[in-house]
């Protein structure tokens, strides 16, 4: 006999969590999916909104002035990626597999570019190699404006991204493999290629695609130092802001979406492989001193660190120098901004507000959202759908997101139209732009908790939100802090999404850097970029201090069980 199928009844917890999940899914749909979908439809419409099929695409590809950017973008990104990966691998290898001194210092220096907008490196390059550059001669008559500048600038700001990924892959080496290789009498070189490279191959692949996407979708560097050299990202800007040709902007956006989407899938694939290739019984590898290797690597790492510090130092110096290169006496006048065109302390204030709002509301939305995705007992399909929605931003370049927001929020009939031109839309865009990494960070932290906390809580008739507040949140506080700082710094430094969305009263520091540079006020632009660096660095320090304090305070219960 077959008993009737049981229809589970929902309690208050289930309703609340399911409802929360639904709200989150709607939120992500509105701030992400619908705008993107709308942008796709714009690419097949004319200016009046009539369907024109692939006419826009045909126009794009038959115009060499436009479609030439594809080839440019591809080869410049490929070259910058190759250089970045090679440098980052050497650097990561030295940090993880050798016995060089000052590892902490070198690690810190390598992370510095994360504190600055990508524009900063470009501005520094102009000072170093531009028409009045100190090291102009080093280019043998070539101009920094163009591919050379774009490649060097891109390598600078994507370097830490590559380093983090490759370092993670190298840090988790299994010492047993090295011992096996040695005992089999394999040569050093063979051990290196077979064990080291193959062990890190997923990390390398992952880094490769991430960096390529970062470069090809970046807008700051080519805008400042690209000169007449067309790239896809700058083309979107030109089409939209320069010529108000939104349809063509949508076409270019679609093209830009392709590598990003591809990178997204490759990255996910590599991540999964990386994790499964590590057995839980792996023995951590401890490098042994080897004077020649260590000295060579120290030289290499020192050189890279010197270049990073040099670029940063150049920007810093430029922001204080009275009139580069004629009068190098120091002044604070560039930090005044009142005479500069396109920036002001108000922009800086706006940026701080944006960063604060994004950090607070972003980490709230992301953490609660990840909790609901991970812990809701009902509505399995909705959980999966929401998780997938949360992964989309990783595959969407900031420029594309910004343009999609124009289409969606500026549409006349949209009830959310009132958000257009406000600080709120900047916050929404920034949260959406950086959602995925934060979401995954939160999920990782949540997965480390005992999965039965919610079961115990339900058995004790305690509502889930109480346990969320009293147990889950305190235990995940370090991860929540990480998410907040990630949002803060990215909100401070990002240009790409917000450059389409700011209004006269919501100008931002990062956009001000761009506009001041555009207007020829390079020194104030450098000053503003450095302001962002100081702020990010300060917040980072605060974060480190807070984290340490938190760890000390909670040491009692974080003790490992015996």
């Amino acid at each position, binding site marked *: 006999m077959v008993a009737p199928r049981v229809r589970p009844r929902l309690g208050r917890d289930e309703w609340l969590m399911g409802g929360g999940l639904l709200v989150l899914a709607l939120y992500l749909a509105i701030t992400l999916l619908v705008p993107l979908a709308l942008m796709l439809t714009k690419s097949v419409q004319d200016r009046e909104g009539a369907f024109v099929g692939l006419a826009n695409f045909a126009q794009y590809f038959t115009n060499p002035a436009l479609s030439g950017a594809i080839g440019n973008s591809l080869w410049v990104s490929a070259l910058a990626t190759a250089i970045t990966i090679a440098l980052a691998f050497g650097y990561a290898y030295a940090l993880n597999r050798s016995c060089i001194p000052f590892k902490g210092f070198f690690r810190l220096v390598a992370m510095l570019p994360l504190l600055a907008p990508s524009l900063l490196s470009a501005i520094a390059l102009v000072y170093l190699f531009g028409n009045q550059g100190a090291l102009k001669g080093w280019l043998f008559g070539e101009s920094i404006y163009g591919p050379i500048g774009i490649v060097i600038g891109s390598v600078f700001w994507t370097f830490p991204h590559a380093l983090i990924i490759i370092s993670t892959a190298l840090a988790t080496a299994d010492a047993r493999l090295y011992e096996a290789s040695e005992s089999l009498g394999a040569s050093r070189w063979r051990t290196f290629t077979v064990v080291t490279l193959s062990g890190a191959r997923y990390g390398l692949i992952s880094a490769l695609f991430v960096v390529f996407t970062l470069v090809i979708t970046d807008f700051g560097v080519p805008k400042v130092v690209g000169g007449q050299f067309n790239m896809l990202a700058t083309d979107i800007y030109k089409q939209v802001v320069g010529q108000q040709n939104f349809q063509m902007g949508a076409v270019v956006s679609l093209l830009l979406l392709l590598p990003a989407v591809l990178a997204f899938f490759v990255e996910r694939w590599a991540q999964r492989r990386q994790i499964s290739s590590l057995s839980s019984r792996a023995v951590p590898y401890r490098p042994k001193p080897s004077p020649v290797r260590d000295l060579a690597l120290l030289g290499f790492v020192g050189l890279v660190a010197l270049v990073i510090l040099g670029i940063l130092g150049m920007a810093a110096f430029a922001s204080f120098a009275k009139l580069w290169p004629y009068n190098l006496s120091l002044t604070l006048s560039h930090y005044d901004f009142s005479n500069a065109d396109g920036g002001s302390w108000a922009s800086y204030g706006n940026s701080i507000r944006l960063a604060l709002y994004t950090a607070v509301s972003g980490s709230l939305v992301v953490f609660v959202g990840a909790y609901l995705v991970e812990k809701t007992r009902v509505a399995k399909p909705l959980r999966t759908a929401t998780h997938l929605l949360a992964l989309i931003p990783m595959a969407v370049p900031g420029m594309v997101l910004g343009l999609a927001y124009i289409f969606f929020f500026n549409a006349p009939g949209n009830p959310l139209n009132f958000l257009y031109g406000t600080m709120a839309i900047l916050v929404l865009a920034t949260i959406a732009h950086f959602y995925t990494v934060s979401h995954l960070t939160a999920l990782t932290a949540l997965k480390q908790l005992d999965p039965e906390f919610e079961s115990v809580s339900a058995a004790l008739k*305690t509502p889930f939100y109480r346990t969320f507040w009293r147990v889950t949140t305190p235990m995940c506080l370090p991860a929540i802090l990480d998410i907040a700082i990630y949002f803060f710094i990215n909100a401070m430094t990002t240009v790409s999404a917000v450059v389409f969305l700011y209004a006269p009263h919501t100008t931002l520091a990062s956009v001000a850097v761009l506009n001041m540079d555009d207007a020829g006020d390079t020194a104030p632009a450098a000053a503003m970029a450095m302001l962002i660096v100081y702020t990010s660095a300060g917040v980072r320090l605060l974060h480190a201090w807070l984290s340490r304090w938190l760890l000390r305070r909670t040491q009692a219960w974080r003790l490992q069980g015996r």
Partner: protein
Amino acid sequence: MTTPYLRIRNLSKHFGDFTALDNVNIDIYRGEFVCFLGPSGCGKTTLLRAISGLDIQTHGTVEQDGRDISALPPAKRDFGIVFQSYALFQNLTVARNIAYGLENRKQPKAAIQQRVTELLELIGLPDSGHKYPAQLSGGQQQRVALARALAISPGLLLLDEPLSALDAKVRTHLREEIKSLQRRLGITTIMITHDQEEAISMADRIVVMRDGRIEQIGTPLEIYHQPASLFVAEFIGAMNLLPATRIGHGEIQLGSARLACAVQGYEPGAAVRAAVRPEDIVCTGKTNGHANSLQAEVHDLEFMGPFFWLSLGGGELGEHRLRAQLPSQRARELDLRPREALHLHIPAEHIRLFPNSYSHG
């Protein structure tokens, strides 16, 4: 007979195409200690989660204390639960952990305090209230988890392999403690285990499961002495399972020996499995004073302290192998050596017959 406290009827659980529970029926009475026993993956946890509402079954009903709770969410049911991982809230002290379920009930602080002290004493950790779980040993943590589950005085206590994460010595100790606690409180308890010794020593009744079905429900003695299926016979304790043939006159032929036993249900000539426990085999030595005897050779002797393991074969057993447990004292009397022939007596009531192959039912 009283009505059951927990009544499980026609319970099934599907994960997609996979059937994790298949038409399970169990009655559990008030105050009983019941163990779910079975190999890994047989559906014990799935059944427990259906009873608790944490993962509701696909079909079938669960009644608790006369109330149909089949479709209710866990918060609407009446149970306490303890997991193998303890699942203690690490950021709360032991006392706050135990008080966790009480604090939600708007009881006066003093009453909560009183109850926590009471429970800390009950689990033998009166001075550990201010400590954090990470500062306790595994066994202590599991006792705290138990106290936390018992704090709200649930009608039903569910334990999912509470002892598996502990080392052997702590395990035996905690086994007795849980059992005596359960007796004292008289709380209806279901415990999952895949350790048969644990089940036999703790349970009032055991539910033996295999592949999502119930193989047998009975007291430890019934399960041990009257296994209902070949699977149970083999799974619980040590058991000889010998191929034999039913012959006429209430006898089976085993090797070249004929042994009397209960043969109901088997046609003459049918191939069967004869199940005999090693400790039920009586060695009579060189003499053969009994009916139901056979003669065989000692292949191997293994001294275990209080008893010997005997490996027997040859003689009337032919190719078959038989393991017997021989008390050390008796072995001394017989002065056994390897390769020696001896007579074995297997009482008819200790031979159980099963169909030759596994089957469900």
